[in-house]
């Protein structure tokens, strides 16, 4: 059976892999016993709207903030252990917070999009980043998209204006953020 366009099921599923149940889903070939609820199947593969994407990014930002806080506390604890008598909480400039936070965000975005196509926030909200072929991004593409997203966050809000639910980064890099409630990651170069 010829895989449908957008069907990004991993090829190692064997010759018996069926494309059943993909009608109306368009992107990933949901098996006929897929756990995606019936009411959600109609929009699987469609580009996600602003609310979902903002929520996902918010969750990711919260996680990165928690990570930053953890780093700060860890660094402070290390300093306390090394010199308890002269210990004081380290002063951190806003610029350093921005740089380290931005670096953490960029790394988490790039790794997530190149491996599973979704960050933690995206996984919770059931969305996934794919390229123009509906495939998982390559490492280079994921790194560039992550950098552009971190450097120009307001670009996300072009989704509201766009007639196709695309952010600025999506338009420039020809990527899409789609609803995808399945759990299997899409493989790069596979359809």
């Amino acid at each position: 059976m010829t895989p449908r366009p957008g069907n990004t099921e991993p090829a190692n599923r064997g010759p018996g892999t069926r494309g059943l149940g993909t009608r109306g889903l368009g992107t990933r070939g949901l098996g006929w016993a897929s756990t995606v609820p019936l009411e959600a199947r109609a929009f699987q593969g469609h580009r996600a709207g602003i609310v979902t994407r903002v929520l996902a990014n918010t969750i990711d930002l919260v996680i990165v903030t928690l990570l930053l806080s953890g780093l700060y506390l860890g660094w402070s604890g290390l300093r306390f252990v090394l010199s308890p008598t002269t210990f004081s909480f380290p002063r951190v400039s806003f610029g350093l917070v921005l740089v380290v936070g931005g670096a953490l965000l960029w790394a988490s975005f790039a790794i997530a999009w190149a491996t599973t196509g979704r960050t933690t926030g995206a996984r919770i909200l059931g969305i996934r980043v794919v390229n123009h072929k509906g495939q998982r991004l390559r490492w280079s593409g994921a790194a560039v998209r992550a950098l552009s997203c971190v450097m120009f966050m307001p670009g996300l809000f072009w989704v509201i204006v766009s007639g196709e639910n695309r952010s600025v980064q999506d338009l420039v890099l020809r990527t899409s953020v789609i609803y995808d409630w399945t759990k299997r990651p899409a493989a790069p170069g596979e359809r």
Partner: protein
Amino acid sequence: MGALLAGGRLARRTARTVGRITAPVVRAAVDPPLVPYRWRPIRRLEQWGQDWRERRGLLVEAGVRAGSEVASRTAQEVLPLVDLTSVVQVVLDRLDLDAIATSALDDLDLGAVVDQVIDELDVSVVLDQALGEVDITELVVEQVDLGAVVQEALDAVDLTGVVLTRVDLGQVVTAALDQLDLTQIVQQRVDLTEIAEQVVEDIDLPDIIQESTGSMASEAVRAARMQSVDADDAVSRLADRLLLRVRKRSAKTDAVLEAETEATSEDGSR
């Protein structure tokens, strides 16, 4: 032979001549005129003639009886001495049996004969008797080329059509299924393991297990996702209205559009 015939003719002529000469004399002697009838010799002759006529039947009968007895005894004595086979053979050699048979058949009304025979015979009884004495199956198996007969019959008949029109296939299949132990056949003939593996491959088993084990969390997540999707739609509609967008917003990716086109063409080609 010619001399015999000539001699015979001469003797007959001589007898006729002598008779013509002696007839008046004999007649005068036997039936003399002027003599009362009761004295005439002819009266005695006529009486003898009458007696002869009366006794002739009995005499002939006795003669025939004696003759047949003599013939029978003679045959009994003679037949053992004769090679009847060779005699019959000689006779048969000299007979044109074909001509005789042809002539006889020409003279016979065979149709009438056969009709009469059939009328007088109880054909069913005769057939029963004949069939009882003959092993027809063995006869047919030995004498008939059954393969050729069956082949010829099969060539001449549209067997599929005959079966489709004449046979209640549903009943046949039902009867066959009643006699079969399908479970056993499936167990023997079907590689159930392979099918099970195929099914497990086709369904998203890890997904299902994950869903079933974390149903509480997944329900909350599902509700949150559905609400965010609804919010997406609401925001999109609002934005479109504010932007006075005439053209409807399309959230479908190229992959979705391609898949839909393919699905439509597949439906059309069916």
